[in-house]
């Protein structure tokens, strides 16, 4: 059995060139005895949902992980360019030694934890956002049709950020955005929060009618700028009207027959 865990699953840092920051990791193996080999590599986003693909690119030598102390050390030299680094610290098991001489497949496992790093001289890198998509169905039935809002944001600045904001529906109902990290020069689909649970951004009313206006409002990290967008959905009781129509036709036919 292989049973690996790592904590924290995500480490975010913004650091000035010439400074040093350290982070302690906990990695456990509660499975068969094996040797874990740590490695630091760059990652690239895989799609818009926050998943990643590891690359073969090695990290600069001012980012290191000490296996004995389990400490990650980041100490960019004075002349380090102001840019973001998206990394994964991985721990890899060795394949077991085969003693059976059977037709078989052996397992190796890699567990990883992500590191988002911004190098910035003044601690205030340029941050800007673009609303790629804020949409909802244009027309829905009043019954049985929860309205789901699709939100995709793009990071057009130099540093990763999180959106802080909400979707306000008809100036009444509020759906809170999940503060997902959006990486510089990438897009990300944003979910919403229900307490601490990640959920779709959905208006769960049992019945809606008329014009439903959803206003998106968010800022990014501590930036005071408020980004706004709006989308409108019209809800009509199509099913109910259909039922009335059918009933009307039945009554008409019945009356005709009666005559």
């Amino acid at each position: 059995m292989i049973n690996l865990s790592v904590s924290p699953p995500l480490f975010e840092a913004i650091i000035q060139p010439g400074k040093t920051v350290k982070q302690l990791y906990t990695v456990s193996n509660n499975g068969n005895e094996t040797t874990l080999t740590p490695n630091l590599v760059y990652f690239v986003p895989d799609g818009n949902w926050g998943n990643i693909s590891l690359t073969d690119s090695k990290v600069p030598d001012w980012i290191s992980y000490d296996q004995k102390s389990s400490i990650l050390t980041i100490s960019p030299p004075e002349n380090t360019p102001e840019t973001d680094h998206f990394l994964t610290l991985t721990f890899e098991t060795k394949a077991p030694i085969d003693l059976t001489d059977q037709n078989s497949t052996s397992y190796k496992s890699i567990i990883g934890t992500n590191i988002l790093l911004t190098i910035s001289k003044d601690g205030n890198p340029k941050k800007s956002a673009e609303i790629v998509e804020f949409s909802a169905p244009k027309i829905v039935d009043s019954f049985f049709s929860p309205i789901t809002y699709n939100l995709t944001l793009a990071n057009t600045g130099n540093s990763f950020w999180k959106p802080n904001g909400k979707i306000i529906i008809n100036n009444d109902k509020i759906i809170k955005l999940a503060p997902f990290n959006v990486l510089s020069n990438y897009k990300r689909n944003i979910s919403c929060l229900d307490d601490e649970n990640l959920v779709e951004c959905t208006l769960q009313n049992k019945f809606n009618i008329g014009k439903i206006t959803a206003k998106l409002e968010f800022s990014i990290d501590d930036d005071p700028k408020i980004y706004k967008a709006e989308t409108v959905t019209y809800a009509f009781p199509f099913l109910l009207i259909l039922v009335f129509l059918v009933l009307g036709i039945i009554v008409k036919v019945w009356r005709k027959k009666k005559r």
Partner: protein
Amino acid sequence: MKRSKVLVFCVVFLSTTYYVLSTVHGQERIESPNYRIVFPNLNSGAGIPTSSNYNLNSTIGQTAAGLFSSNGYRVKAGFQYINSIIPFSFSISDIQKNFGTLTPDTPSTSSSTIIVSAGGAGGYSIKAHENNPLKTFDAVNTIIDTLCDTTCSEAVAASWTSSTKYGFGFNMNGNDVPADFTTTDYYRQFADKSTAESAATIMSSVNVGTSRTATITYKVNVSSVQPAGTYQNIITFTAIPSY
């Protein structure tokens, strides 16, 4: 006259229904801050070996999320919107699967269970690849990666029920598995690292989840002309939380 009465009735009925059913209420909780300091960042601790299981590190200090500011850097560790110290964990029930003696036209199957807990993370993905197709030690003979009954690949599963279709493949069944594994008869090839294929996602979720469980089932089927020998390869599973 009758028509206008019906019209008035409909308008009154729909308006009443709207006001009764569509009333919504804002939640106070929505106004709470987005970020939480879940744990102080103690930055202390030491490696403490434990029992028979290998522990790269056990810490008595900062084990999870934290936040501190200091001159020259700012740090956040963990997912601030999740009040949880659950680490990201991955387990698989075996370290090796033996297929025994392979009989021509008689598929051999074997399964392992994968469990993922991303309670402290926003989501996760598990990717898998093989170092190469099943090969003999001298690498002369190979059991090909399956093409299923018609065609399948490392990215697309297809039905594989025929006993005269040969190769090595896998099926996924359970939580968070790709939708193309329609039934337990649907198989894919493993992505082949030796031909520079990228590891393929076999489980993923955008949501927080604990003990997300799936079964991976391998299938090998050989023809009567398959040279005798011991065929082996290595599958690598890569488990990474979302960012």
